[in-house]
């Protein structure tokens, strides 16, 4: 068990280093000059060259990479070439917002998917089960940004019940925080909830065919009780896997939803920084995202071993 964890941590560290190199290389071949963007169209080519030197852009790529990654290892993400602020706090502020948004949408997705998935599994051959199944299919087909725009049109523009976008920190005004959170969280979570409900459904269906459920039924338990007492824990394993992957997808989906709702999260920050060619900031953000997704997968793996004792001995 310890060996497995150590091995996974080794893979984790290697992946982070490789990801940092790939990110750095890809950004350095991206066309566009940060110095020209900073100085604008009135500056001469000589001004731009001087600015590039001041920004350290004229150093060899290897030097720039080692300088950047070396600092990152000791927790220093450097200074933004655009805002001239430390990048670390900019990232953590934005990450905090995105994490709140993603976790809320995961909770909403689960609250919808688990009961809905179980219901559609149990009512599989009934007409209502088929209708419910169809509804979740529609949910899968509607992209998050479209759901977002529809929600804004109905609840913000037409009824004026909720704000059309923006963000308020929970510490500032909790009621407004919730008002600003609800529409984007639903938009982001709806697709994942629909997808997840289909996994829950198929996982439950599969478990219901297992021998141990038949045994439980033979002992005299009803279908429902057999499922609840013995089935759900087993059905949870594949659903957990999907959920882990989905959180990674949600981080990416949040980029789009943050744009639709003008939320200053990590996705918005990333797009703004790419547009301005604020490369140290972009590298930092991408690296944080990579670490976040890897850590998530790592945790999901660990969670399996807690849910399913069989995986513990296999390890």
């Amino acid at each position, binding site marked *: 068990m310890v060996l497995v964890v150590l091995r996974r941590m080794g893979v984790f560290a290697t992946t982070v280093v490789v990801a940092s190199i790939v990110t750095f290389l890809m950004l350095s071949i*991206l*066309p*566009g*000059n940060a110095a*020209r*963007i*900073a*100085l*604008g*169209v*009135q*500056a001469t*080519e000589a*001004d*731009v060259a*001087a*600015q590039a030197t001041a920004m350290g852009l004229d150093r060899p790529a290897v030097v720039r990479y080692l300088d950047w990654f070396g600092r990152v290892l000791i927790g220093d993400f450097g200074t933004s070439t*655009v*805002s*001239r*602020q430390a990048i670390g706090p*900019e990232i953590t502020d934005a990450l905090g917002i995105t994490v709140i948004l993603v976790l809320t949408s995961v909770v909403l997705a689960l609250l919808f998917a688990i009961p809905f998935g179980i219901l559609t599994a149990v009512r599989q051959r009934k007409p209502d089960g088929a209708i419910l199944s169809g509804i979740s299919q529609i949910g899968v087909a509607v992209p998050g940004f479209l759901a977002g*725009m529809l929600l*804004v*049109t109905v609840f*913000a*523009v037409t009824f*004026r019940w*909720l*704000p*059309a*976008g*923006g*963000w308020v920190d929970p510490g500032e005004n909790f009621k407004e925080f919730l008002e600003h959170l609800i529409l984007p969280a639903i938009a982001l979570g709806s697709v994942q909830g629909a997808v997840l409900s289909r996994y829950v459904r198929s996982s439950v269906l599969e478990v219901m065919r297992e021998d141990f459920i038949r045994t439980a039924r033979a002992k005299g338990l009803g279908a429902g009780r057999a499922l609840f007492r013995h089935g759900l824990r087993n059905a949870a394993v594949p659903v957990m896997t999907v959920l882990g992957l989905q959180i990674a997808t949600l981080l990416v989906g949040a980029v789009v939803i943050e*744009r*639709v*709702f*003008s939320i*200053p999260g990590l996705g*918005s*920050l990333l*797009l*703004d920084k790419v*547009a*301005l*060619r*604020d490369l140290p900031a972009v590298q930092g953000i991408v690296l944080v995202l990579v670490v976040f997704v890897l850590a998530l997968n790592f945790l999901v793996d660990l969670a399996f071993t807690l849910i399913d004792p069989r995986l513990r001995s296999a390890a």
Partner: protein
Amino acid sequence: MFASIATIMVASMALVGCSSGSTTAEGEPDTSLTVGLLATPGNLDYTTTAGAAIPQALLYNVYEGLVKLDNDGTIIPLLAESWTVSDDGLVYDFLLHDGVTFSDGSPFTAESVKFSLERVKDNWTANGPAYLDPIASIEVVSDTEARIILSKPSNSWLFNMSGPVGTMFTESALADLATAPVGTGPYTVSSFKTGDSLVLAANADYWGEVPYMTDVTLRYFTDATAQTNALLSGDINLISGISQFQLVDQFKSNTDFQVLEGASTGEVTLSMNNASDAFSDVRVRQAVMYAIDRQAVMDTANSGYGLLIGSMVPPTDPWYDESLADLYPYDPDQATELLAEAGVSDLTVAFKIPNLPYAVAGAQVVKDQLAKVGITADVTVLEFPAVWLDDVFSSHDYDMSLIMHSEPRDVNAFAAPTYYAGYDSPAVMAKFAEADAADATTYVELMKEATTTMAEEAAADWLYLQPAISLADADLLGVPKNTPSLALDLSTIAR
């Protein structure tokens, strides 16, 4: 300049938060205002960062200069109570307002004038430090009298002093221009979250009339639809300078809002690389002028909003000549004839446009119309600003582009031979220089002559002038209609 395409600002005034209109629940006047803008400032230091977003938010609101532009584009006194100019046009004596302080408490005096303007040459890297080149020396006559001596007479100098380079700074607050600007203006910055919002609070110690709106939030959007939705839903009160005109009509029929149409300084320009093989012949450029139906481009790209100008001069400049709009009527036959005369057939041009909605829409119409006279336009869409600036603006690696030049009085810069348009006319440059040094009347005449020559020689096809359309909550008063400068002057807005 083009940087402002990205910076077109949309400030929209809708009912804030609720439909209470002019008063709060307690019956007090509602003096808070939320403005929706596009293009967020990356930081707050316009001495070293280009783009219209920073001056839009800070100029005249947080920062002030000796003079400002009013909404009609006229130079009026600001920190200078009055000024006199010597007969030879070289000596400017400014009488300054007494008792003015910066928001950090330090006094504004003639020393501040000397310090701020002398700082520009060596410390400013953006927003045109060269605009102050005519200054030979600055003398502190007394605390309230500053004398500025020019090395040669310059008509454009005082106008430029109304822009960012004329800003007054205090030596005590230069440490953190990027996040904590300190000026003499009616507002101070209370918070700034890049990409999200900039919050301004009324400066209680302001030397002039304290503005009606005490709390102003500038909220930044990346999407024009999100911006208008925010206005419709009451999240914001004002959109100043909407960028997507198909979104305007829904507000015209809605009595909760007002639609204000004014003039901007944004010339949407079909630029032709005069130095390229394709367009070095004036007849080919003129053929393009006849081949393009500018009204059709404006209808498609701007839902018909805008003004056909025919030159790089907006109506707010004294040398505007409305007849230039008809200089090259839509006439494909004439275009074909000119091309034949120039011996050009099967012309293919690299048409590199920025990935901005009006450019992408307009380029399609241009491409179709050019095809009718036998010119093939290879359209490439480039990321703006990063790649467009690199490829088109810096490297001149293009034949044709389509971009808005939004800076005020940018026609002189456009004519420079080193500029990306590659227009090289020593006669026009000489006329601009002569105009700058002339008396006021001759100045206007010579400017008119030079800009007319540029139009006749088809230095570019100035398709139309972008309108300045503001959408506002119906109860807002004093919303600036035109945008003659980069600033969004908040001090006149009331309920």
